[in-house]
Protein backbone atom coordinates (compact mmCIF):
# COMPACT_ATOMS: atom_id res chain seq x y z
CA UNK A 1 0.00 0.00 0.00
CA UNK A 2 1.20 3.49 -0.78
CA UNK A 3 2.05 5.73 2.14
CA UNK A 4 -0.73 7.98 3.37
CA UNK A 5 -0.76 11.29 1.55
CA UNK A 6 -0.75 14.13 4.04
CA UNK A 7 -3.61 16.56 4.16
CA UNK A 8 -1.98 19.07 1.83
CA UNK A 9 -1.80 16.43 -0.89
CA UNK A 10 -5.47 15.67 -0.28
CA UNK A 11 -6.49 19.30 -0.68
CA UNK A 12 -4.63 19.71 -3.95
CA UNK A 13 -6.20 16.58 -5.44
CA UNK A 14 -9.30 17.09 -7.58
CA UNK A 15 -11.60 15.47 -5.04
CA UNK A 16 -14.41 13.14 -5.87
CA UNK A 17 -16.32 12.93 -9.14
CA UNK A 18 -19.30 10.64 -9.60
CA UNK A 19 -20.12 10.38 -13.29
CA UNK A 20 -23.43 9.06 -14.60
CA UNK A 21 -23.46 6.09 -12.26
CA UNK A 22 -26.22 3.56 -12.85
CA UNK A 23 -26.64 0.32 -11.00
CA UNK A 24 -29.17 -2.46 -10.65
CA UNK A 25 -29.67 -5.34 -8.26
CA UNK A 26 -30.82 -8.03 -10.67
CA UNK A 27 -33.69 -6.62 -12.71
CA UNK A 28 -34.36 -3.79 -10.28
CA UNK A 29 -32.59 -0.48 -10.99
CA UNK A 30 -31.21 1.21 -7.85
CA UNK A 31 -29.28 4.17 -9.22
CA UNK A 32 -29.91 5.96 -12.51
CA UNK A 33 -27.36 8.34 -13.97
CA UNK A 34 -26.22 9.78 -10.67
CA UNK A 35 -23.63 12.53 -11.14
CA UNK A 36 -22.07 14.98 -8.75
CA UNK A 37 -18.66 16.29 -7.74
CA UNK A 38 -17.16 17.08 -4.38
CA UNK A 39 -14.01 19.18 -4.02
CA UNK A 40 -11.28 17.71 -1.83
CA UNK A 41 -11.45 18.68 1.82
CA UNK A 42 -15.20 19.26 1.70
CA UNK A 43 -18.09 17.47 3.33
CA UNK A 44 -20.70 16.06 0.99
CA UNK A 45 -24.06 14.76 2.14
CA UNK A 46 -26.10 12.15 0.33
CA UNK A 47 -29.66 12.56 1.45
CA UNK A 48 -32.74 10.71 0.32
CA UNK A 49 -35.58 8.51 1.50
CA UNK A 50 -34.61 5.18 3.05
CA UNK A 51 -33.83 2.43 0.58
CA UNK A 52 -33.06 4.84 -2.24
CA UNK A 53 -29.57 3.46 -2.82
CA UNK A 54 -27.51 5.93 -0.77
CA UNK A 55 -25.57 3.21 0.97
CA UNK A 56 -24.99 1.38 -2.29
CA UNK A 57 -23.50 4.53 -3.76
CA UNK A 58 -21.35 5.08 -0.68
CA UNK A 59 -20.00 1.54 -0.90
CA UNK A 60 -19.07 2.22 -4.53
CA UNK A 61 -17.29 5.43 -3.63
CA UNK A 62 -15.34 3.43 -1.05
CA UNK A 63 -14.44 0.84 -3.65
CA UNK A 64 -16.40 -1.99 -2.04
CA UNK A 65 -18.38 -2.57 -5.23
CA UNK A 66 -18.43 -1.39 -8.81
CA UNK A 67 -21.25 0.41 -10.62
CA UNK A 68 -22.82 -1.32 -13.65
CA UNK A 69 -22.42 1.88 -15.66
CA UNK A 70 -20.69 5.21 -15.25
CA UNK A 71 -17.61 5.80 -13.17
CA UNK A 72 -16.36 7.17 -9.92
CA UNK A 73 -13.11 9.11 -10.10
CA UNK A 74 -10.98 10.14 -7.17
CA UNK A 75 -7.37 10.04 -6.10
CA UNK A 76 -8.00 8.92 -2.53
CA UNK A 77 -6.08 5.86 -1.51
CA UNK A 78 -7.32 5.21 1.97
CA UNK A 79 -11.05 5.45 2.52
CA UNK A 80 -12.45 4.75 5.98
CA UNK A 81 -16.00 3.71 6.81
CA UNK A 82 -18.25 4.17 9.79
CA UNK A 83 -21.66 2.53 9.66
CA UNK A 84 -24.99 3.04 11.38
CA UNK A 85 -24.33 -0.14 13.34
CA UNK A 86 -20.89 0.39 14.88
CA UNK A 87 -19.94 -3.16 13.78
CA UNK A 88 -17.46 -3.68 16.59
CA UNK A 89 -15.94 -7.10 17.18
CA UNK A 90 -17.69 -8.33 20.32
CA UNK A 91 -14.66 -10.41 21.36
CA UNK A 92 -12.18 -7.54 21.29
CA UNK A 93 -12.04 -4.67 23.76
CA UNK A 94 -12.47 -1.06 22.67
CA UNK A 95 -8.74 -0.49 22.22
CA UNK A 96 -8.30 -3.56 20.03
CA UNK A 97 -11.37 -2.61 18.04
CA UNK A 98 -9.86 0.79 17.31
CA UNK A 99 -6.64 -0.90 16.21
CA UNK A 100 -8.47 -3.37 13.94
CA UNK A 101 -8.23 -1.33 10.73
CA UNK A 102 -4.53 -0.76 11.35
CA UNK A 103 -3.91 -4.45 10.81
CA UNK A 104 -4.32 -3.81 7.09
CA UNK A 105 -1.35 -1.43 7.18
CA UNK A 106 2.34 -2.29 7.39
CA UNK A 107 2.72 -1.38 11.02
CA UNK A 108 4.19 -3.04 14.10
CA UNK A 109 2.18 -3.92 17.14
CA UNK A 110 3.72 -1.20 19.30
CA UNK A 111 2.83 1.53 16.86
CA UNK A 112 -0.65 0.10 16.43
CA UNK A 113 -1.22 0.16 20.17
CA UNK A 114 0.14 3.69 20.47
CA UNK A 115 -2.18 4.94 17.75
CA UNK A 116 -5.20 3.22 19.24
CA UNK A 117 -4.35 4.78 22.58
CA UNK A 118 -4.14 8.24 21.02
CA UNK A 119 -7.43 7.87 19.16
CA UNK A 120 -9.13 6.71 22.34
CA UNK A 121 -8.40 10.11 23.83
CA UNK A 122 -9.27 12.00 20.66
CA UNK A 123 -12.82 10.66 20.53
CA UNK A 124 -13.25 11.36 24.23
CA UNK A 125 -12.99 7.90 25.76
CA UNK A 126 -11.07 7.20 28.96
CA UNK A 127 -8.25 4.69 29.54
CA UNK A 128 -10.71 2.45 31.38
CA UNK A 129 -13.16 2.54 28.49
CA UNK A 130 -10.38 1.13 26.34
CA UNK A 131 -10.42 -2.10 28.35
CA UNK A 132 -14.14 -2.56 27.99
CA UNK A 133 -15.79 -4.93 25.58
CA UNK A 134 -18.48 -3.58 23.25
CA UNK A 135 -21.36 -4.97 25.32
CA UNK A 136 -20.06 -2.99 28.30
CA UNK A 137 -20.19 0.30 26.38
CA UNK A 138 -23.21 2.49 25.79
CA UNK A 139 -24.48 3.15 22.27
CA UNK A 140 -22.75 6.51 22.07
CA UNK A 141 -19.44 5.10 23.28
CA UNK A 142 -19.64 2.28 20.76
CA UNK A 143 -20.15 4.80 17.99
CA UNK A 144 -17.11 6.71 19.27
CA UNK A 145 -15.04 3.54 19.08
CA UNK A 146 -16.23 2.98 15.51
CA UNK A 147 -15.29 6.56 14.65
CA UNK A 148 -11.87 6.17 16.26
CA UNK A 149 -11.34 2.96 14.28
CA UNK A 150 -12.12 4.84 11.06
CA UNK A 151 -9.82 7.77 11.88
CA UNK A 152 -7.02 5.53 13.17
CA UNK A 153 -6.01 4.42 9.68
CA UNK A 154 -5.30 8.06 8.84
CA UNK A 155 -7.81 8.10 5.98
CA UNK A 156 -7.91 10.64 3.17
CA UNK A 157 -11.60 9.97 2.55
CA UNK A 158 -14.15 9.40 5.29
CA UNK A 159 -17.40 7.64 4.43
CA UNK A 160 -20.12 7.80 7.05
CA UNK A 161 -23.25 5.72 6.58
CA UNK A 162 -25.89 7.19 8.91
CA UNK A 163 -23.55 6.89 11.87
CA UNK A 164 -25.76 8.91 14.18
CA UNK A 165 -29.23 7.68 13.33
CA UNK A 166 -29.34 5.02 16.05
CA UNK A 167 -28.50 7.57 18.75
CA UNK A 168 -30.95 9.70 20.69
CA UNK A 169 -31.19 13.40 19.91
CA UNK A 170 -28.80 14.83 22.52
CA UNK A 171 -26.17 12.23 21.80
CA UNK A 172 -26.56 12.73 18.07
CA UNK A 173 -25.79 16.43 18.37
CA UNK A 174 -22.76 15.69 20.49
CA UNK A 175 -21.43 13.15 17.99
CA UNK A 176 -22.11 15.45 15.04
CA UNK A 177 -20.08 18.17 16.72
CA UNK A 178 -17.27 15.73 17.47
CA UNK A 179 -17.13 14.40 13.91
CA UNK A 180 -17.29 17.91 12.54
CA UNK A 181 -14.37 18.97 14.72
CA UNK A 182 -12.27 15.96 13.80
CA UNK A 183 -12.76 16.18 10.04
CA UNK A 184 -12.36 19.96 10.03
CA UNK A 185 -9.10 19.70 11.95
CA UNK A 186 -7.74 17.22 9.41
CA UNK A 187 -9.31 18.82 6.35
CA UNK A 188 -10.73 15.41 5.42
CA UNK A 189 -12.93 14.87 2.42
CA UNK A 190 -16.08 13.32 3.80
CA UNK A 191 -19.22 11.77 2.38
CA UNK A 192 -22.06 11.44 4.85
CA UNK A 193 -25.19 9.45 4.16
CA UNK A 194 -28.26 10.59 6.07
CA UNK A 195 -32.00 10.92 5.82
CA UNK A 196 -32.08 13.87 8.20
CA UNK A 197 -32.04 17.21 6.39
CA UNK A 198 -31.15 19.14 9.56
CA UNK A 199 -28.08 16.94 9.98
CA UNK A 200 -27.12 17.54 6.36
CA UNK A 201 -27.51 21.31 6.75
CA UNK A 202 -25.48 21.26 9.93
CA UNK A 203 -22.55 19.33 8.51
CA UNK A 204 -22.37 19.52 4.73
CA UNK A 205 -20.69 21.85 2.29
CA UNK A 206 -22.62 20.23 -0.52
CA UNK A 207 -25.92 18.40 -0.22
CA UNK A 208 -26.84 15.87 -2.90
CA UNK A 209 -30.56 15.13 -2.75
CA UNK A 210 -31.46 11.74 -4.17
CA UNK A 211 -34.96 10.82 -5.32
CA UNK A 212 -36.71 7.62 -4.20
CA UNK A 213 -35.55 4.36 -5.77
CA UNK A 214 -34.31 4.17 -8.47
CA UNK A 215 -32.34 7.16 -7.29
CA UNK A 216 -31.35 10.07 -9.46
CA UNK A 217 -29.99 13.39 -8.33
CA UNK A 218 -33.04 15.51 -7.54
CA UNK A 219 -31.20 18.63 -6.40
CA UNK A 220 -27.78 19.94 -5.40
CA UNK A 221 -27.35 22.53 -2.70
CA UNK A 222 -24.16 24.24 -1.57
CA UNK A 223 -23.87 25.78 1.85
CA UNK A 224 -21.13 28.37 2.05
CA UNK A 225 -21.56 29.39 5.70
CA UNK A 226 -18.65 27.99 7.75
CA UNK A 227 -19.55 25.02 9.94
CA UNK A 228 -18.78 26.85 13.14
CA UNK A 229 -21.26 29.60 12.29
CA UNK A 230 -24.22 27.27 11.80
CA UNK A 231 -26.30 27.65 14.91
CA UNK A 232 -29.78 26.23 15.51
CA UNK A 233 -31.44 29.29 14.04
CA UNK A 234 -29.41 29.00 10.86
CA UNK A 235 -30.10 25.29 10.53
CA UNK A 236 -33.80 25.81 11.00
CA UNK A 237 -33.98 28.62 8.45
CA UNK A 238 -31.82 26.76 5.94
CA UNK A 239 -33.90 23.58 6.19
CA UNK A 240 -36.95 25.69 5.48
CA UNK A 241 -35.25 27.32 2.52
CA UNK A 242 -34.18 23.98 1.03
CA UNK A 243 -37.62 22.47 1.44
CA UNK A 244 -39.09 25.42 -0.43
CA UNK A 245 -37.37 23.93 -3.45
CA UNK A 246 -40.04 21.66 -4.99
CA UNK A 247 -37.55 19.08 -6.33
CA UNK A 248 -35.96 18.67 -2.90
CA UNK A 249 -39.29 18.49 -1.11
CA UNK A 250 -40.63 15.93 -3.59
CA UNK A 251 -37.54 13.74 -3.26
CA UNK A 252 -37.75 13.78 0.50
CA UNK A 253 -41.53 13.24 0.30
CA UNK A 254 -42.32 16.46 2.14
CA UNK A 255 -44.89 18.96 0.89
CA UNK A 256 -43.02 22.15 -0.14
CA UNK A 257 -44.86 24.38 2.32
CA UNK A 258 -44.46 22.04 5.28
CA UNK A 259 -41.07 23.13 6.48
CA UNK A 260 -39.93 21.38 9.67
Amino acid sequence: MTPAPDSTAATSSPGLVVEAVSHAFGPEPVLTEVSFALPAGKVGCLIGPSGCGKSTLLAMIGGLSRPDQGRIVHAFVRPAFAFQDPCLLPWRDARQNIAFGLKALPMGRTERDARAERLLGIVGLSEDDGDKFPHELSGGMRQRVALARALAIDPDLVLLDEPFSALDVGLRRQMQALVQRLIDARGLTTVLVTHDLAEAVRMADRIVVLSPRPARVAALHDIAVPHAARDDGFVHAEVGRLLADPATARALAVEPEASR
Partner: protein
Amino acid sequence: MITLRARLAQALDYVWGGWGAAASLLLLVALWEAGHAAYGTLVLPSPRETFAALWRMTLDGRVWPAVVETSRNALVGFLGGVVVGGALGALAGLSDMMRRLLAPIATLMLGIPAIAWVVLSLLWFGGSGLAVVFTVLVTSAPIVFASAAEGVRSLDGALRRMARAFRVPRRVLVWDVYLPHMLSYLFPAVATALALSWKIAVMTELLSGAGGIGDGLATARVQVDTVKAMAWILVVVALLLAIEYLLLEPLRRRLLTWRRELPGAEARDMPGI
Protein backbone atom coordinates in the same frame (compact mmCIF):
# COMPACT_ATOMS: atom_id res chain seq x y z
CA MET B 1 -4.49 -3.33 29.48
CA ILE B 2 -4.35 -6.39 31.68
CA THR B 3 -1.23 -6.24 33.78
CA LEU B 4 0.76 -9.21 34.99
CA ARG B 5 -0.37 -8.41 38.49
CA ALA B 6 -4.03 -8.54 37.56
CA ARG B 7 -3.47 -11.85 35.81
CA LEU B 8 -1.72 -13.26 38.86
CA ALA B 9 -4.59 -12.10 41.05
CA GLN B 10 -7.03 -13.80 38.69
CA ALA B 11 -5.07 -17.05 38.80
CA LEU B 12 -4.91 -16.95 42.60
CA ASP B 13 -8.62 -16.26 42.71
CA TYR B 14 -9.21 -19.31 40.57
CA VAL B 15 -7.06 -21.59 42.74
CA TRP B 16 -8.64 -20.20 45.90
CA GLY B 17 -12.06 -20.99 44.44
CA GLY B 18 -10.92 -24.63 44.50
CA TRP B 19 -11.52 -24.85 48.27
CA GLY B 20 -15.25 -25.12 47.69
CA ALA B 21 -14.77 -27.94 45.23
CA ALA B 22 -12.33 -29.66 47.59
CA ALA B 23 -14.85 -29.46 50.43
CA SER B 24 -17.59 -31.06 48.35
CA LEU B 25 -15.24 -33.82 47.14
CA LEU B 26 -14.16 -34.56 50.72
CA LEU B 27 -17.80 -34.82 51.72
CA LEU B 28 -18.20 -37.49 49.04
CA VAL B 29 -15.17 -39.35 50.42
CA ALA B 30 -16.80 -39.25 53.88
CA LEU B 31 -19.99 -40.81 52.47
CA TRP B 32 -17.82 -43.39 50.72
CA GLU B 33 -16.18 -44.26 54.06
CA ALA B 34 -19.63 -44.58 55.66
CA GLY B 35 -20.71 -46.93 52.87
CA HIS B 36 -17.61 -49.00 53.44
CA ALA B 37 -18.37 -49.20 57.17
CA ALA B 38 -21.89 -50.43 56.41
CA TYR B 39 -21.21 -52.96 53.62
CA GLY B 40 -17.59 -54.13 53.96
CA THR B 41 -14.66 -54.29 51.61
CA LEU B 42 -16.03 -56.71 49.04
CA VAL B 43 -18.85 -54.33 48.13
CA LEU B 44 -17.17 -51.01 48.78
CA PRO B 45 -13.52 -50.90 49.80
CA SER B 46 -12.53 -48.03 52.07
CA PRO B 47 -10.98 -44.91 50.57
CA ARG B 48 -7.72 -45.70 52.35
CA GLU B 49 -7.48 -49.21 50.87
CA THR B 50 -8.32 -47.82 47.46
CA PHE B 51 -5.69 -45.10 47.54
CA ALA B 52 -3.14 -47.62 48.84
CA ALA B 53 -3.97 -49.96 45.96
CA LEU B 54 -3.70 -47.09 43.53
CA TRP B 55 -0.30 -46.20 44.95
CA ARG B 56 0.91 -49.81 44.63
CA MET B 57 -0.33 -50.00 41.04
CA THR B 58 1.42 -46.76 40.25
CA LEU B 59 4.69 -48.04 41.74
CA ASP B 60 4.30 -51.26 39.72
CA GLY B 61 4.24 -49.02 36.62
CA ARG B 62 0.79 -50.11 35.54
CA VAL B 63 -1.12 -46.85 35.89
CA TRP B 64 0.92 -44.41 33.84
CA PRO B 65 1.14 -46.47 30.61
CA ALA B 66 -2.60 -47.15 30.84
CA VAL B 67 -3.32 -43.45 31.28
CA VAL B 68 -1.15 -42.59 28.30
CA GLU B 69 -2.72 -45.23 26.12
CA THR B 70 -6.31 -44.31 26.98
CA SER B 71 -5.58 -40.60 26.62
CA ARG B 72 -3.91 -41.11 23.27
CA ASN B 73 -6.81 -43.11 21.90
CA ALA B 74 -9.36 -40.71 23.31
CA LEU B 75 -7.53 -37.63 22.02
CA VAL B 76 -6.95 -38.99 18.52
CA GLY B 77 -10.59 -40.02 18.26
CA PHE B 78 -11.73 -36.69 19.69
CA LEU B 79 -9.59 -34.63 17.31
CA GLY B 80 -10.81 -36.75 14.40
CA GLY B 81 -14.37 -36.17 15.57
CA VAL B 82 -13.84 -32.41 15.82
CA VAL B 83 -12.29 -32.24 12.35
CA VAL B 84 -14.95 -34.42 10.70
CA GLY B 85 -17.88 -32.92 12.64
CA GLY B 86 -16.53 -29.38 12.28
CA ALA B 87 -15.90 -29.68 8.53
CA LEU B 88 -19.27 -31.26 7.78
CA GLY B 89 -20.94 -28.77 10.11
CA ALA B 90 -19.26 -25.88 8.31
CA LEU B 91 -20.50 -27.29 4.99
CA ALA B 92 -24.01 -27.55 6.39
CA GLY B 93 -23.76 -23.98 7.61
CA LEU B 94 -22.65 -22.71 4.22
CA SER B 95 -25.20 -24.49 2.07
CA ASP B 96 -28.84 -25.07 2.78
CA MET B 97 -28.86 -28.17 0.65
CA MET B 98 -25.97 -29.69 2.57
CA ARG B 99 -27.73 -28.90 5.81
CA ARG B 100 -30.87 -30.70 4.71
CA LEU B 101 -28.75 -33.61 3.62
CA LEU B 102 -26.50 -33.86 6.67
CA ALA B 103 -28.61 -32.73 9.63
CA PRO B 104 -30.85 -35.85 9.74
CA ILE B 105 -27.77 -38.06 9.52
CA ALA B 106 -26.18 -36.21 12.43
CA THR B 107 -29.36 -36.57 14.48
CA LEU B 108 -29.45 -40.27 13.68
CA MET B 109 -25.79 -40.74 14.64
CA LEU B 110 -26.44 -38.87 17.86
CA GLY B 111 -29.27 -41.29 18.61
CA ILE B 112 -27.18 -44.46 18.21
CA PRO B 113 -26.04 -45.53 21.69
CA ALA B 114 -22.29 -45.50 22.21
CA ILE B 115 -22.35 -49.14 23.21
CA ALA B 116 -23.71 -50.06 19.75
CA TRP B 117 -20.72 -48.35 18.18
CA VAL B 118 -18.44 -50.27 20.54
CA VAL B 119 -19.87 -53.58 19.33
CA LEU B 120 -19.61 -52.55 15.68
CA SER B 121 -16.06 -51.25 16.04
CA LEU B 122 -15.02 -54.49 17.76
CA LEU B 123 -16.42 -56.44 14.84
CA TRP B 124 -14.70 -54.18 12.32
CA PHE B 125 -11.35 -53.46 13.96
CA GLY B 126 -10.95 -56.27 16.49
CA GLY B 127 -9.32 -55.62 19.83
CA SER B 128 -6.97 -52.89 18.66
CA GLY B 129 -6.61 -49.24 19.62
CA LEU B 130 -8.24 -48.40 16.31
CA ALA B 131 -11.56 -49.65 17.66
CA VAL B 132 -11.29 -47.13 20.50
CA VAL B 133 -10.34 -44.27 18.20
CA PHE B 134 -13.20 -45.08 15.84
CA THR B 135 -15.82 -45.28 18.58
CA VAL B 136 -14.74 -41.96 20.07
CA LEU B 137 -14.69 -40.35 16.64
CA VAL B 138 -18.19 -41.37 15.62
CA THR B 139 -19.68 -40.39 18.97
CA SER B 140 -18.03 -36.97 19.17
CA ALA B 141 -18.43 -35.89 15.52
CA PRO B 142 -22.24 -35.44 15.61
CA ILE B 143 -21.97 -33.43 18.83
CA VAL B 144 -19.62 -30.95 17.14
CA PHE B 145 -21.56 -30.99 13.88
CA ALA B 146 -24.64 -29.06 14.99
CA SER B 147 -22.79 -26.23 16.70
CA ALA B 148 -20.32 -25.84 13.82
CA ALA B 149 -23.25 -25.50 11.43
CA GLU B 150 -24.91 -22.92 13.66
CA GLY B 151 -21.64 -21.02 14.05
CA VAL B 152 -21.04 -20.71 10.32
CA ARG B 153 -24.67 -19.86 9.64
CA SER B 154 -24.71 -17.04 12.14
CA LEU B 155 -21.49 -15.38 11.00
CA ASP B 156 -22.45 -11.74 11.04
CA GLY B 157 -22.65 -10.33 7.52
CA ALA B 158 -22.19 -6.80 8.86
CA LEU B 159 -18.88 -7.69 10.53
CA ARG B 160 -17.66 -9.29 7.34
CA ARG B 161 -18.58 -6.15 5.40
CA MET B 162 -16.80 -4.00 7.97
CA ALA B 163 -13.65 -6.12 7.73
CA ARG B 164 -13.78 -5.83 3.95
CA ALA B 165 -14.21 -2.06 4.15
CA PHE B 166 -10.99 -1.85 6.15
CA ARG B 167 -9.28 -4.09 3.63
CA VAL B 168 -7.75 -6.31 6.27
CA PRO B 169 -5.81 -9.29 4.96
CA ARG B 170 -7.40 -12.74 4.96
CA ARG B 171 -5.24 -13.84 7.88
CA VAL B 172 -6.69 -11.08 10.07
CA LEU B 173 -10.19 -11.86 8.85
CA VAL B 174 -9.83 -15.49 9.90
CA TRP B 175 -8.03 -14.77 13.16
CA ASP B 176 -9.98 -11.75 14.41
CA VAL B 177 -13.41 -12.29 12.93
CA TYR B 178 -14.16 -15.89 11.95
CA LEU B 179 -12.26 -17.84 14.58
CA PRO B 180 -13.48 -16.05 17.74
CA HIS B 181 -17.02 -16.28 16.47
CA MET B 182 -16.72 -19.98 15.67
CA LEU B 183 -15.02 -20.68 19.00
CA SER B 184 -17.85 -19.13 20.95
CA TYR B 185 -20.24 -21.50 19.22
CA LEU B 186 -17.99 -24.55 19.11
CA PHE B 187 -16.52 -24.41 22.57
CA PRO B 188 -19.43 -25.83 24.60
CA ALA B 189 -19.87 -28.72 22.16
CA VAL B 190 -16.14 -29.39 21.97
CA ALA B 191 -15.88 -29.38 25.76
CA THR B 192 -18.73 -31.89 26.04
CA ALA B 193 -17.18 -34.08 23.36
CA LEU B 194 -13.77 -33.99 25.05
CA ALA B 195 -15.12 -35.11 28.42
CA LEU B 196 -17.22 -37.77 26.73
CA SER B 197 -14.32 -39.10 24.68
CA TRP B 198 -12.46 -40.38 27.76
CA LYS B 199 -15.51 -42.20 29.05
CA ILE B 200 -16.18 -43.78 25.67
CA ALA B 201 -12.53 -44.73 25.35
CA VAL B 202 -12.55 -46.52 28.73
CA MET B 203 -15.76 -48.32 27.84
CA THR B 204 -14.42 -49.54 24.52
CA GLU B 205 -11.16 -50.65 26.07
CA LEU B 206 -13.05 -52.58 28.73
CA LEU B 207 -15.00 -54.54 26.16
CA SER B 208 -12.20 -54.96 23.64
CA GLY B 209 -9.31 -55.71 25.98
CA ALA B 210 -7.27 -53.31 23.90
CA GLY B 211 -5.21 -52.12 26.85
CA GLY B 212 -5.47 -48.83 28.71
CA ILE B 213 -7.55 -48.04 31.77
CA GLY B 214 -10.54 -50.00 30.49
CA ASP B 215 -8.43 -53.12 30.25
CA GLY B 216 -7.31 -52.65 33.85
CA LEU B 217 -10.95 -52.39 34.92
CA ALA B 218 -11.81 -55.55 32.97
CA THR B 219 -9.00 -57.46 34.69
CA ALA B 220 -10.16 -56.23 38.11
CA ARG B 221 -13.65 -57.47 37.30
CA VAL B 222 -12.42 -60.91 36.28
CA GLN B 223 -10.43 -61.16 39.51
CA VAL B 224 -13.42 -59.84 41.50
CA ASP B 225 -10.99 -57.29 42.94
CA THR B 226 -13.22 -54.39 43.99
CA VAL B 227 -10.29 -52.47 45.45
CA LYS B 228 -8.47 -52.44 42.11
CA ALA B 229 -11.66 -51.59 40.23
CA MET B 230 -12.20 -48.61 42.53
CA ALA B 231 -8.59 -47.56 42.06
CA TRP B 232 -9.00 -47.54 38.27
CA ILE B 233 -12.20 -45.57 38.60
CA LEU B 234 -10.26 -43.05 40.66
CA VAL B 235 -7.76 -42.75 37.81
CA VAL B 236 -10.54 -41.99 35.30
CA VAL B 237 -12.16 -39.48 37.63
CA ALA B 238 -8.85 -37.75 38.30
CA LEU B 239 -8.25 -37.47 34.55
CA LEU B 240 -11.69 -36.00 33.94
CA LEU B 241 -11.30 -33.51 36.77
CA ALA B 242 -7.89 -32.49 35.45
CA ILE B 243 -9.29 -31.92 31.96
CA GLU B 244 -12.23 -29.96 33.32
CA TYR B 245 -10.42 -27.72 35.80
CA LEU B 246 -6.94 -27.41 34.36
CA LEU B 247 -7.92 -27.16 30.70
CA LEU B 248 -11.55 -26.45 29.92
CA GLU B 249 -12.58 -24.09 32.70
CA PRO B 250 -9.60 -21.71 32.33
CA LEU B 251 -10.09 -21.77 28.55
CA ARG B 252 -13.77 -21.09 28.98
CA ARG B 253 -13.02 -18.06 31.13
CA ARG B 254 -10.39 -16.77 28.78
CA LEU B 255 -12.36 -17.21 25.59
CA LEU B 256 -15.64 -15.89 26.77
CA THR B 257 -14.80 -12.76 28.75
CA TRP B 258 -16.55 -10.77 26.06
CA ARG B 259 -19.81 -12.53 26.62
CA ARG B 260 -22.61 -10.96 28.58
CA GLU B 261 -23.31 -14.21 30.40
CA LEU B 262 -20.17 -13.82 32.48
CA PRO B 263 -21.03 -12.92 36.08
CA GLY B 264 -20.26 -9.29 36.88
CA ALA B 265 -20.55 -8.15 33.28
CA GLU B 266 -23.99 -6.65 33.83
CA ALA B 267 -22.88 -4.62 36.81
CA ARG B 268 -20.22 -2.88 34.77
CA ASP B 269 -22.74 -1.75 32.16
CA MET B 270 -22.99 1.99 32.22
CA PRO B 271 -25.90 4.14 31.18
CA GLY B 272 -25.42 7.33 29.17
CA ILE B 273 -22.21 8.18 27.41
